[in-house]
């Protein structure tokens, strides 16, 4: 009699315990419009460097992860409002953003570099940028750089996605686009980017890219840092890097 009472209780306790481990599920937010770092393929699947890194980290932490996509300029508010638990979306670690979220160690280093038509004599010197029409994605450090450095002397156009900035560069509405070097690199390789090239040296070359988590989730941040160190050490990171770039971007 007693046993029959205990058994369901035990089962319930076990169920709860397994429920707790099943709850160890992470939702990862990314943008999905930033090739080759994160993009959506023809079948609607999300992929790219960021997504591969996120999956490798999840495997390392032994948790199941769901990738969800979110428009770039709403991605931090969505994290804060718990729509997902971490942002793996090529996000630069900046002081402005640190007011809103916490960052892991960096998982790659970005540079900002202008691209412009091959035929133009475009130069990234501040003086030469006067009066030019320049584009960047909204809510990125490229956008911030343009607003801060040439916002008063040049026309700055901000786009919802990087792809739209490229479209306008190709259409001739822009004299140049400032963007992440590796993303620009990918676009220059494409058909649409044939007539364009990098101009001058990167205007900023120590842009550390990290994973953003909510400020209160310090445990998650620690676990991600540990996992990051682990995949750096065991060669997983290198493999993913080589899949996208013939040089190290760490």
């Amino acid at each position, binding site marked *: 009699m007693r046993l029959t009472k205990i058994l369901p209780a035990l089962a319930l306790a076990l169920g709860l315990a397994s429920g707790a481990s099943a709850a160890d599920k992470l939702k990862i937010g990314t943008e999905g419009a930033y090739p080759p770092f994160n993009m959506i393929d023809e079948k609607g699947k999300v992929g790219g460097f960021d997504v591969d890194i996120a999956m490798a980290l999840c495997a390392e932490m032994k948790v199941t992860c769901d990738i969800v996509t979110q428009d770039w300029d709403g991605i*931090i*508010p969505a994290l804060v409002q718990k729509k997902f638990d971490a942002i793996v979306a090529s996000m630069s670690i900046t002081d402005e953003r640190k007011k809103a979220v916490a960052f892991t160690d960096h998982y790659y280093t970005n540079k900002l570099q202008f691209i412009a038509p091959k035929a133009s004599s475009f130069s990234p010197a501040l003086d030469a940028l006067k009066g030019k029409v320049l584009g960047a994605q*909204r809510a990125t450090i490229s956008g911030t750089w343009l607003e801060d450095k040439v916002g008063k002397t040049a026309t700055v156009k901000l786009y*919802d996605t990087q792809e*739209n900035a490229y*479209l*306008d560069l190709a259409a001739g*509405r822009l004299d140049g686009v400032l963007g992440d070097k590796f993303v620009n690199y990918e676009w220059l390789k494409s058909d649409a980017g044939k007539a364009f090239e990098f101009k001058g040296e990167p205007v900023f070359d120590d842009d550390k890219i990290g994973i953003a988590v909510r400020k209160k989730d310090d445990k998650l941040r620690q676990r991600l840092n540990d996992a990051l160190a682990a995949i750096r050490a065991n060669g997983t990171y290198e493999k993913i890097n080589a899949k996208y770039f013939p040089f190290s971007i760490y």
Partner: protein
Amino acid sequence: MNFEVIVENLPKLLDGALLTVELVVFSSLAGLALAFPLALARCSPRPWLRAGPWAYIFFFRGTPLLVQLFLVYYGLSQFEAVRASIFWPILRDAWWCALITMALHTAAYIAEILRGAIQAVPRGEIEAAHSLGMGVWQAQRRIVLPRAVRIALPAYSNEVILMLKGSALASTITLLELTGTARTVIARTYMPIEIFLAAGVLYLLISFALVQVFRLLERRLGTYAC
């Protein structure tokens, strides 16, 4: 709630609001001008004359404004022929692209409003006009259209307010109207609630002003507003 950030960015938001008002007023007026011939042709007894406006209205009402904006701004500019044409100085400009698209879009809706209003003019009044010896055009000009405008006015004011909200989509083609400005400010401050609240209040003020303008207009034209 951080009200400081609202105060700090208010001048920028007001600049954006001004551009919003500009887009709505110009596109609503241009749309209205375009809608008259469309509506008249749409009411024509001749099928070949009805077909064009029918197709136009079907297309512009049947597709989202966002898609139309993208087609005009990003789509047309992909063609070398367009970039080489004399229209490029205008199509190159995001402001013109937004204005043209919004005017074409709203014209389709206004044309349908006018068509409904023209058809709502009591038959007896038209017959009375004819019996006084007025021709078809004279009756249109003196009786039907003035009556139709009065009938259509409340629905038109509704459409203008819808365009006010539709104008937020212009931010997707780089225009810094109210929504675009708000999003750009949020990108720096990460305070979406405060800034969107301020933008929302500005939208309310603009629509309040529009409602007042239409109330005055309705009074003058003798459609008794309630």
